[in-house]
C-alpha cells in the first residue's frame, strides 16, 4: 500500500513537472494576439466566385510600433512586422494583403525572391503600380509564405517589398513615408503555414539571418488557413 502511494505520488509529481515545464516553455514565445483577415463580400477569381478577405500589415525598422508595444520589448532595435505576426485567413478565399513598408534595405542574397510569386496573375502593386519583380538590389523585406506539403494544400507566395529610399521624407510618426504594396492570393483548404522575410535583415549576425530573422514575432510568423 505504501509503495503504491509512493509510486502514484512519484508519477503524479512527474506529470506535474512535465506539465509545469511545458506550460512555461509554451508561453515563453507565444505571440500576444492573432490578426484575422476581415472578410468583405466576394470576388471573382480564376477559380470562380470566392469570399474576399483583407489583411493589413506593416514592416517597421524597429520593434516599437508593432506587437511588442511602444517600449519595443526586449529588442526594441530589431526590425519587425506589425501589427501582429500570427495571421489567420479563411480557406478557399481570395486574400488581399496590403503592406506598408517603412524600412530601408539593400541587396537580396538570392535574386529568386526579387520576383513576385504565387499571387493572382503573378503581380503585386507597388504604390499603385503593377509589377512582377523589383530591383533585387533595392529590397527592404519580403513576405514569403510556405509550408509542409503533402498533407495540406500547397501554398507558396513570395512578394518583395521595395526599400524606402534613405532620403525619404519623414512622417509625423517618426518613420519615413512608406511604400504601399498590395497583392492577392487564393487559399486552398485549411492548414498551418508559416510566413517569413527572405531579405537578410538580421544585421550583425551570420548571413544577416539571425536576431529578428530567427525569432518568431519579428520577421516571421504563422499563417493559419481555416
Amino acid at each position, binding site marked *: 500500500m505504501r509503495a503504491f502511494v509512493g509510486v502514484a505520488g512519484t508519477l503524479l509529481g512527474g506529470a506535474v513537472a512535465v506539465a509545469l515545464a511545458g506550460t512555461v516553455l509554451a508561453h515563453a514565445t507565444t505571440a500576444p494576439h492573432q490578426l484575422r483577415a476581415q472578410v468583405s463580400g466576394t470576388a471573382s477569381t480564376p477559380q470562380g466566385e470566392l469570399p474576399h478577405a483583407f489583411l493589413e500589415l506593416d514592416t517597421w525598422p524597429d520593434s516599437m510600433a508593432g506587437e511588442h508595444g511602444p517600449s519595443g520589448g526586449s529588442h526594441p532595435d530589431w526590425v519587425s512586422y506589425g501589427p501582429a505576426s500570427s495571421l489567420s485567413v479563411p480557406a478557399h478565399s481570395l486574400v488581399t494583403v496590403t503592406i506598408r513598408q517603412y524600412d530601408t534595405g539593400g541587396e537580396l*542574397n538570392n535574386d529568386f525572391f526579387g520576383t513576385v510569386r504565387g499571387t493572382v496573375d503573378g503581380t503585386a502593386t507597388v504604390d499603385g503600380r503593377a509589377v512582377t519583380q523589383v530591383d533585387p538590389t533595392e529590397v527592404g523585406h519580403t513576405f514569403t509564405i510556405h*509550408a509542409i506539403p503533402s498533407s495540406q494544400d*500547397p501554398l*507558396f507566395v513570395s512578394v518583395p517589398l521595395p526599400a524606402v529610399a534613405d532620403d525619404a521624407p519623414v512622417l509625423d510618426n517618426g518613420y519615413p513615408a512608406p511604400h504601399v504594396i498590395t497583392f492577392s492570393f487564393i487559399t486552398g483548404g485549411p492548414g498551418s503555414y508559416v510566413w517569413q522575410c527572405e531579405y537578410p535583415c538580421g544585421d550583425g549576425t*551570420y*548571413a544577416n539571418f539571425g536576431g529578428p530573422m530567427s525569432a518568431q514575432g519579428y520577421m516571421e510568423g504563422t499563417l493559419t488557413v481555416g
Partner: protein
Amino acid sequence: MTDTLTTAPADAPGGPPTVPAWKRAPIAPILGIFVVLCALLTPFALFVPAHLMGDAASAHMRGIESTVTAFSLASVPVAALVWAVTIYSIIGWRHRGSEPPAEEAPPLRGNTVVQVVWLVLSSVLCLFLLIWGLAVLRPTPSAASAGQPLMVEVTGQQWTWSFGYPDNGNATADRLVLPVNQPVQFRVTSKDVIHSFWIVQMGVKVDANPGETTLASVTPDRIGTFDIRCAELCGLYHAYMQTTVQVVSADQFASWVQAQPRATS
C-alpha cells in the same frame, strides 16, 4: 601473462562424450526457438522495411530498398541466434530464490572453436555487406552514357528551397518539376547555413553547403508528386523547409518550364 586463460579452455568440459552435442538439453530447444524466430523475422525483413519506405521513384531508390531488404534478411539469423540463446537462458537456466545458487554450472572459460567460428562468420557477414555496398555505390555505366543530363540549380536558403533551370532560359521555381526518364543533375548550394537536399522517394540526398556546390544525380522513372525535405537542422523553420517534386512527361515539362518566371539577372 595469460596463465588462466590459456589453460582454461583445456579445463572446460565438452560435455559427456557419449551423447552427440546437438542432442543435449540446451541445443535442441534453442534450435527450436531459433527456427521459430527465423520464421517470424524473415517475412518481417522481407516486407516491412521496403513497405515502409514506400514506392520508389528511381532505380537508385529501388537499389536502396533492396539493400535494406537484403541486409535485413542477412541479419535475421544473427538476431534469431542471439535472441534464441537469450530467451532460452531466461526460461531454461533460471534460478529463483533469495540466496545465490550453488556454483554447479560448468566453468566455461572460452571455447576456441566457438570463438573462431563466431569471428569468421561475423567477418564474412561484414565482407558481404561491404561488397554489396560498394557494388550499389558504383555508378551505373548506363546513367553516365545516357546523354546530356538536365541541369537543375538547387539553392537552400533559410527556410525555403528555390530551383533554377539554367538550360531552360534560367527559369526559376519554388518547387521542382522534372521530366520522366531524363537524367537530372542537381547542383546544390546554400546561401547561408548547411541544409540537406533530400528527395525522399528518389533516394537523393546531399548537403547544401554555403560557399560550395555539391552534386547529385538521379533519373526519375515514375510520374507523380514526391517530397523534398531539408534533412539538416537549419534553424527556426527547419521543419517547414519542404516542397514537392512533380515528375511529368517531357511535353508537360517543356510547357511548364516555359511559363515560369526567369531569373532577374
